């Protein structure tokens, strides 16, 4: 690993420490950043350790939602009783990702800010617009089996790797951030960006801002949800396609629908037209197929990832079927029913 300086932050000075040094980076769980530093992809001159800041609480909001501190470890969040009871889709998505050891280390804020696992982003011997803007994209004409089918650009076809964020997108979560100019909240669906011609920017977080919390609104869809993740191995692999589906049913009809996809785009992918097409409709395969077609209407496959379009269509229908039946995908018994 390269050499760097190390400083511990306290709550009062974390933001001023980072604001004063554009070559510094915050470190919390470290699971992604240290890996990228070993690969020479990230080369900070200074690490500011925020892991001891008091951002580790999961608190009930007065109106019933949850506020999750940015430093709550992924495992603590997944197994938190309030999350397990009220937001099981979030618990399920977290437990579908990484390994038990990594979930014990990785923070909520870090999960949001983790970088793509595109092999060319990691391989400093190859061009990559995300790593070295303007150098080109090696994935478009290269090995692109893991890559995006929605919202891509000529500059980048990377996917956002998080499972947790797909569930957060479906739940309409908000990201609270703080910076030199004060605090603000960003809807999770607007937190991550599409690549466009600036793929080096994964999120709309400013360089001198810090994630302080993630807020969940009241609706948790605990009765009718699923997180269905399709991958090359049964465990501990990134999604080829994942679907977070959450429904509110009333007398056999769909009153409210949420549908978010992972593994298909540069951000968790939500499609409001597909959700609108589900609302008010009867629970049946035709309704679900129609919604899937809407999500994928602009999907574009490349040499190795075109299979994801059919895979996503089937995964959406299966996930909506699981959610409607109240039989969410188990994250230990991987048989898909």
């Amino acid at each position, binding site marked *: 690993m390269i050499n760097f*300086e190390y400083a511990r932050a306290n709550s009062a000075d974390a933001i001023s420490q980072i604001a004063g040094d554009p*070559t510094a980076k915050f470190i919390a769980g470290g699971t992604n950043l*240290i*890996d990228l530093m070993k690969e020479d992809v990230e080369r900070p001159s200074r690490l500011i350790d925020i892991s001891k800041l008091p951002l580790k609480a999961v608190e009930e909001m007065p109106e019933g939602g949850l506020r999750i501190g940015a430093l709550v470890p992924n495992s603590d969040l997944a*197994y938190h009783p309030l999350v397990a009871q009220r937001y099981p889709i979030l618990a399920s998505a977290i437990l579908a990702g990484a390994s*038990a*050891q*990594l979930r014990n280390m990785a923070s909520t804020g870090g999960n949001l800010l983790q970088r793509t696992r595109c092999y060319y982003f990691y391989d400093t011997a190859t061009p990559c617009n995300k790593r*070295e803007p303007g150098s080109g994209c090696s994935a478009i004409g290269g090995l692109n089996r893991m890559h995006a089918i929605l919202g891509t650009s000529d500059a980048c076809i990377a996917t956002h790797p998080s499972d947790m964020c797909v569930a957060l997108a479906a739940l309409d979560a908000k990201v609270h951030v703080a910076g030199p100019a004060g605090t603000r909240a960003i809807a999770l669906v607007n937190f991550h960006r599409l690549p466009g011609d600036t793929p080096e920017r994964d999120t709309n977080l400013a360089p001198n801002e810090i994630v302080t919390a993630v807020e969940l609104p009241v609706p948790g869809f605990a009765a009718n949800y699923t997180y269905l993740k399709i991958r090359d191995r049964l*465990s501990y692999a990134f999604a080829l396609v994942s679907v977070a589906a959450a429904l509110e049913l009333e007398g056999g009809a769909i009153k409210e629908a949420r549908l978010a996809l992972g593994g298909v785009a540069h951000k968790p992918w939500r499609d409001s037209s597909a959700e609108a097409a589900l609302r008010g409709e009867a629970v049946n395969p035709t309704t679900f197929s129609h919604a899937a077609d809407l999500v994928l209407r602009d999907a574009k496959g490349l040499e190795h990832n075109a299979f994801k379009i059919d895979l996503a269509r089937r995964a959406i229908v299966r996930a909506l079927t699981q959610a409607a039946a109240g039989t969410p995908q188990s994250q230990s018994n991987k048989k898909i029913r």
Partner: protein
Amino acid sequence: MQMARSGTATRPNISIPEKIPIALTVNGIATQLAVAPWTTLLDALRDHLDLTGTKKGCDHGQCGACTVLVDGRRINSCLTLAVMQDGTNVTTIEGLAADGVLHPLQQAFIDHDAFQCGYCTPGQICSAAGLIAEGNAKSADEIRELMSGNICRCGAYPNIVAAIQQAMGQS
């Protein structure tokens, strides 16, 4: 020519920082050491404290060979800096046996022949100790899922699951 890199475009040449003093309790023994900031916990254990039971496999958090318990929680020691663990309580494979008696997991791994080459075994056993403490696995499926961060290239998985089930029955 070196091209600009996102986020750290203008990285200055920095002098080698002073080593940072830290205090760890390792296997019950209070330990002071001074480490460079980029020393991982894994390298501190192996190279500074001569605790070579914890193995370096992939060094990227993908294989689990480096698994240790920090304040009772299993983590990948290759993906954390030693300076970040200042003040913590670290348990490695060397710290599991007590008073000359093997830990139930160590005995169970022997009883079930839960290894071949043995390189992944310290990580498997520390991970299993964390798994049992967490209390979230009951069935074999759940053990397999929650042990998926530990790779065994010899393929001893069925015996590893059996060993963990035996140790769970005793805890």
